[in-house]
């Protein structure tokens, strides 16, 4: 490894990067744009969830409860449902996003000082919206309970038993992902997708334009070419990470509970793994179009199997296993651990080891595949 030669190729990559404004803009703009889009999409419609009511009780008490829910501003009434299945169907078809189910014995049980059960079904596919709806429902439930208790003041009540028990059942998104959950995921998605595509094109582009032939007759070694191509994009990856963390903090209040330095360390490993994969791809194909296609091949599993969208615990075994083969899966666990739970390095080393293993494997494969000849 010759320092001067390596410096020359890194310098060249930077000059080309600076001159390719479109790609530069994409590399820096897309991460922030995606975060903002995701973030706002999730924050929208927190209030005024269309709500259907299935009131079997049909009493003054039950209507009072519904009125209180409406008064929170989180729920807007739509046509009531004739039965339980009808309420579910209303949510499935999107006519309603929440359903309030009041059982037949609601008023009777309240009068008898027995706990009454009310069910609020919330379509939790939109996590933040549903979370605030759930919060509101529980709050109203509690307030109503306190009121009932107060009215009964004097009477001896079992202190543990709240008379009104609002059971909230989140539908479809039991994990209740919030913007907090999304930001670490987006960082991983963006780093991996953009970096894989860009490095996959790096060598193929030189092959297509004829510059690779001129590069190969120089004394540059395989290692120098590989490393020289990767190093500038490590920098790009770290800038992207910083951009998403800063925007996440100021726009969406995502605080990193753990160590920021640890995030950068782990991200560095993950960036190297992604770049290594991109390089490996670039040694498999000879056309830029093919390089893009192969990189996109990783896009879907990254979205579906890494835990970015769907909880890995709920996946079929085979899918979960395949997910383990994606660097993103491990990186998401690391990021969520650090950002959400403030976990330290002590409990992250298995994932860290996995990332280091991926990096070493991809770069070795790439160097083995990349012959310093035209064959």
């Amino acid at each position, binding site marked *: 490894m010759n320092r001067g030669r390596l410096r020359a190729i890194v310098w060249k990559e930077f000059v080309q990067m600076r001159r390719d404004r479109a790609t530069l803009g994409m590399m820096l703009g897309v991460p922030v744009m995606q975060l903002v889009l995701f973030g706002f999409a999730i924050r929208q419609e927190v209030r005024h969830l269309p709500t259907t009511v299935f009131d079997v009780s049909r009493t003054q008490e039950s209507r009072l409860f519904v009125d209180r829910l409406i008064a929170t501003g989180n729920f807007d009434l739509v046509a009531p449902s004739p039965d339980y299945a009808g309420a579910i169907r209303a949510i499935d078809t999107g006519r309603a996003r929440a359903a309030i189910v009041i059982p037949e014995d609601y008023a009777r049980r309240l009068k008898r000082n027995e706990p009454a059960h009310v069910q609020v079904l919330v379509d939790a596919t939109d996590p933040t919206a549903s979370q605030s709806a759930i919060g509101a429902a529980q709050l109203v439930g509690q307030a109503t309970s306190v009121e009932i208790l107060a009215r009964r003041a004097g009477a001896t009540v079992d202190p543990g038993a709240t008379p009104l028990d609002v059971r909230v059942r989140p539908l479809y998104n039991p994990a209740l992902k919030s913007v907090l959950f999304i930001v670490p995921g987006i960082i991983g998605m963006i780093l991996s997708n953009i970096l894989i595509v860009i490095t996959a094109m790096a060598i193929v582009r030189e092959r297509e334009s004829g510059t690779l032939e001129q590069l190969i*007759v120089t004394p540059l070694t395989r290692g120098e070419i590989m490393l020289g191509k990767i190093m500038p994009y490590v920098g790009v990856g770290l800038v992207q990470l910083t951009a998403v963390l800063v925007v996440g903090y100021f726009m969406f209040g995502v605080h990193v509970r753990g160590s920021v330095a640890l995030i950068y360390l782990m991200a560095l490993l993950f960036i190297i793994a992604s770049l290594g994969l991109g390089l490996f791809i670039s040694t498999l194909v000879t056309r830029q179009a093919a390089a893009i296609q192969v990189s996109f091949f990783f896009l879907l599993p990254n979205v579906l199997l890494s835990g970015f969208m769907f909880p890995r615990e709920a996946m079929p075994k085979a899918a979960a296993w395949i997910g383990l083969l994606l660097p993103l899966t491990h990186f998401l666990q690391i990021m969520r651990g650090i950002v959400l739970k403030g976990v330290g390095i002590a409990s992250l080393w298995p994932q860290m080891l996995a990332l280091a293993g991926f990096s070493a494997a991809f770069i070795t494969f790439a160097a083995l595949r990349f012959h310093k000849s035209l064959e």
Partner: protein
Amino acid sequence: MNAAHAVEARGLAKHFGALKAVDGVTFDIAAGEIFGILGPNGSGKTTTIRMLCGLLTPTAGTATVAGSDVTTHPDRVKSAIGYMSQAFGLYGDLTAEENLRFYGGVYGLDRDLGARIAWAEDRMKLAELGGRLSAQLSGGQRQRLALGCSLLHRPQVLFLDEPTAGVDPAARRLFWTIIRGLADEGTTIIVTTHYMDEAERFDRLAFLSRGTLTAYGTPTEVKRTFGENMTLEDIFVQLQGSEA
């Protein structure tokens, strides 16, 4: 090996599957010589040069360039040679000067990089073009820039694959003046070409046809083997005709 020979090819062959692109060629090139490889399209000129530069591994045969074997010591060969590929191989999104700077760095020039770039710009008549993106240069300017890049590290042997294709006569004349100057200073130069009028400029030449050597020697020797009245152009057409 003979120290006087800058290049020695012995039974050099390259097969792509069933296609015998180069099929056992043997020749020597003396140091300081301008050696021409002539032949019609697809006759194996580029393939031969690529093997000599270590870009392709020969299917059979051996070759030494600047005293090193191309298959066993490709790295030694690479630092001793300069190569200009048939297609423009420089970075179009870098300026002329940036291309020079990059190749200088890649060839390990350090302290004398600035001086060598100045030399190349002066010698290749690039002085006013330094700041232009090389994609915007004319054919002749690009060709001189590529030549400059391949000469920064003072190679002993220079390979030029169809350097004058698509270049106007004035630019070609300028180019040949530069090449002759380099040869006079001791650089061995191997050039492929289609242009018959250029063949007279070679010290010696080889005709390739379908991967084999059909004529080899000084222009006068080659003419003698084919008959005194033939021009090189006639010979070229005759050799090409015998292929069809």
